């Protein structure tokens, strides 16, 4: 995952507003399974019924503030990852969604001043902390995660870290 995370990410943007909650990302009526493929087929059903049929592997979600607020359901990032979304860019993330994404290895990027419309081509260079809207020429930068989180990501997720043994604080 570490090498994968460091690779440039390129994809088509799907734009969402502020405070997209996890009930919108995956409504509770679909929580009777933990299978990422089935969850993916209902991804974003609370906002856009057709998202799951429109999205292609590699696409990027770009959202406003407080993305993933509400319930702790890990099914939300699982469904996004299951669609093949290559990264979620948001002004800010709700804290449980944030940790779930880190824990399961869904690339997320916090970036506050990046302008995008649905359909724009986006390129992200995680190494340089650089994000570009190829369609409009708009660019922005973001900070790398602190070392603690980078280690979880580098390990390939939290359970991989557990396997490596407790590396302590």
């Amino acid at each position, binding site marked *: 995952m570490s090498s994968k995370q460091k690779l440039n990410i390129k994809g088509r943007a799907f734009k969402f507003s502020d*405070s997209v*909650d996890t*009930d*919108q990302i995956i*409504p*509770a*009526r679909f*929580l*009777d*399974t*933990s299978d990422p493929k089935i969850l993916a087929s209902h991804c974003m059903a*609370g*906002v856009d019924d057709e998202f799951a049929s429109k999205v292609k592997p590699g696409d990027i979600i770009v959202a406003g*503030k*407080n993305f993933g*607020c*509400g*319930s*702790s*359901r*890990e*099914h939300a*990032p*699982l469904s996004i990852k299951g669609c093949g979304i290559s990264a979620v860019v948001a002004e*800010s993330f*709700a*804290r*449980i969604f944030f*940790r*779930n994404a880190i*824990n*399961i290895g869904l690339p997320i990027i916090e970036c506050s001043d990046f302008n995008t419309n649905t359909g724009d081509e986006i390129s992200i260079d995680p190494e340089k902390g650089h994000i570009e809207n190829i369609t409009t020429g708009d660019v922005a930068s973001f900070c790398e995660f*602190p070392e*603690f*989180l980078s280690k*979880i990501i580098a390990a390939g*997720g*939290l*359970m*991989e*870290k*557990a*396997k490596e043994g*407790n590396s*302590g*604080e």
Partner: protein
Amino acid sequence: MSLGRKIYLKSVKDKKKLKPGKFIEIDVDLILSNDITTPPAIDAFNQSQIGKIKSPEKAVIVADHFTPNKDIDSAEQVKKVRNFAQEWELKFFGAGCGIEHALLPEKGLVVPGDITIGADSHTVTYGALGAVASGVGSTDIAYAWVTDKVWFKVPEAIKVILKGKLQPHVSGKDIILYLISLIGIDGALYKGMEFCGETLEELSMESRFTISNMVIECGAKYGIMEPDDKTIKYVEKRAQRPYLPLPDKYSIKEDNDFDEVMEIDCSLIEPQVAFPSSPANSYPVSSIQKVEVDQVVLGSCTNGRWEDFVKASKIIKGRKAKEELRFIVIPSTAAIYKKMADEGLLSVFIDGGAIISPPTCGPCLGGHMGVLASGEKALSTTNRNFVGRMGHKDSEVYLANPEVAAETAVRGYISVPQ
């Protein structure tokens, strides 16, 4: 040093590591999950092939969301969870035992000074007992099963001072809705909230649970209250583990080491109603235009405790819910259900036209037992009114306290008792 950080200290011995923004890995006292969030934790546990749960006695699983099971898929999920609990000898509460955040305090499974994690965002409820309790995800649960640990970013802490005498028909629900409307849905994002003040001292444990329960609706990591005599009275007859009432006679009120301080004059708060689709969208019920509703839900981890039903029953007694309105009453634990039967409250509600449901999260998340059709409106004592939360995307949820719920059930439109 805030109470949250003081409690973290029992696991992280070095104070310097507890600066806000630093990452820590700490031992947890209790690891909670439910019928929806346990299956992905089991998947993560199995995929890791670690094959050992470090402290089975710390794990608690409550099947409360889609139970009694609503369909075959949810029954299969609970079967998977129940079998896993049996195999690893984990504490398991099945259908009807209760809603996790009402059940665990009642059973004395969370005590003051605990570090609790739960794969359910309303795990923050236990802050009312003086525990640092935070919602996490399913992989966090799997990780805690095998290591006893969780990772956290040390949060900044906000001191919230509650002062002033409450108006009639105002309770914990109104205080927290009012507070969320002041600071917004991400107003405490990544931060700990620590409550104190004369109003808090007067509040019942039920109202305190309601306040802590909803701190997640403004993004908070935890919402803690320092244990006082009421807390100890509640805990001492229930506690399943020894506990320390407070480190060094600590007092949130006297502590000046907070990143932010807020003072709320609770005497100004009227009974609130949060309009769709945000818990921050709150107004005094007295200020709103007529909103007719199709359904009223009285229950949940937010407002399904004994006092909630006592207050609502006083409003409904001798009256009847409006015809065609669905008035759904859900005791949050089997013990509360029994007490309602023993003390005649069930009769009051049934005579008042209510449908009594067994303990379940059911309608709160649009699961079952009260799902809304398109265009329908519900007034609910639950915690979230997001788009489609209780059913169809074009249905609406309004949040309020139990007394407003009961009065609304009778009148058919959102109203405060006179």
